[in-house]
């Protein structure tokens, strides 16, 4: 069996075990699962993906440059704490970019890849690698440029919006019903106590998925029957900027994270 398949089997087994034991604090449970995986496999899926991301980061693109030639916000090649300060406005593109978007910019503008050559799994792996340099760092995003303020306002409005055939809205559950349960997990206090912005990028052991916050937001919509926004689109970026700013000062416990 390949390592990924093995993990899937192990994760499903552990999940079934957890469900059989009844309700547990999901955060404590994630820590326990992580420890179990580490003890049985010797290495975590997050570490493997970070390693893959490192290789991709140091791979030369068609232009002959590696990603070390790119500026992720703190200067060319500086990764220490860079992800904790995203999303932010970049002067060279004239756009607000998050980690995913900035990796795309780096691969296209600096490394010379065509957009159709870029695989999503590669972007996520590089995001895991770059984010790993922000473990222990506080979230510090700012609303300095008008573009940042406009996107923040849009993100806040989207967060409180009711839309679609089911009157869906993020705040309707993640503000009003924090701690209540619909399905397996209680609703996270996304803007407050749970500091959900700091939980992504992450490996989800329950589904063997590697996700950034972009994927997480899309899943939020999709799970409840609302059309999903495209990857790398402005509504996703706006929601990210809003959540990141709301979680400013929160210290990243571990990036990439390990979640249910």
């Amino acid at each position, binding site marked *: 069996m390949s390592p990924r398949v093995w993990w899937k089997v192990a994760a499903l087994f552990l999940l079934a075990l957890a469900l059989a034991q009844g309700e547990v604090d999901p955060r404590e449970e994630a820590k326990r699962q992580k420890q179990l995986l580490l003890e049985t496999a010797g290495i975590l899926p997050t570490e493997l993906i970070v390693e893959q991301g490192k290789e991709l980061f140091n791979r030369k693109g068609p232009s002959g440059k590696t990603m070390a030639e790119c500026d992720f916000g703190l200067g060319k090649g500086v990764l220490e704490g860079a992800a904790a300060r995203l999303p932010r406005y970049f002067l060279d593109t004239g756009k607000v970019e998050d980690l995913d978007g900035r990796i795309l910019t780096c691969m296209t503008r600096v490394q010379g890849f065509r957009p159709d050559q870029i695989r999503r799994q590669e972007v996520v792996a590089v995001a895991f690698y770059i984010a790993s340099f922000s473990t222990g760092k506080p979230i510090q995003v700012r609303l300095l440029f008008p573009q940042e303020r406009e996107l923040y306002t849009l993100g806040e409005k989207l967060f409180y919006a009711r839309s679609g055939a*089911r009157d869906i809205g993020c705040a309707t559950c993640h503000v009003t019903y924090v701690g209540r349960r*619909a399905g397996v997990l209680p609703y996270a206090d996304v803007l407050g106590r749970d500091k959900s912005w700091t939980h992504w990028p992450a490996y989800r052991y329950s589904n063997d998925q590697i996700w950034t916050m972009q994927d997480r937001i899309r899943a939020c919509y999709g799970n409840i029957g609302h059309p999903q926004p495209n990857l790398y689109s*402005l509504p996703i970026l706006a929601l990210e900027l809003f959540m990141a700013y709301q979680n400013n000062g929160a210290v990243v416990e571990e990036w990439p994270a390990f979640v249910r």
Partner: protein
Amino acid sequence: MKLKKLFPILLATPLVVALAQSYFTPSELEAIKTGGKAYAEVFLNQRPDQALCSFHRNRLPADLLPQFLEEQRALIKYPASGKLMGDWKKGGAIFNNLQKANCFSCHFGSPVHLGGDVGPSLEKYGLKRGQSEAIQRYTYEVIYNAWAYFPCTVMYRFGALGGLTPEEIADVVAYLLDPESEFNTKPAVGSK
């Protein structure tokens, strides 16, 4: 005197409507369009009542409530047969289907799935409430359009937004109320 009282209301009414119709600005809607056609359409076609709940973050000011409730009430339609209690077996299939009505995710009481606690527990609902015309009507109307009783609540407006037909809602009413229904004869998953 009468005119003086009316004047601020007349002035305020178009303002409320204007606010309700423009939760997002045109430039924000342009940004939302980058999310793709299906995603954008949901916001481009945001209903005025949805816009009002969005704008007030689900807590409508008291002065807007009478009109809001009246408008929500006006959306409610009834089965052609006039019967508010249908087939409880069909209702159970709707109640317990995640893709269909997904009732159990938020409400406790299903004998099939462990229920959540976002909404009130409905355990043995029919045995506790009886089957009077009043309770049938109340149950039907809350499922058809929850916003007619609980403005801006999280519960889907099944009838009003087309998730369920009037007949399907009557089936769910029967599942909850009929003393023969397994919802009332079988223990709820997780009951003590």
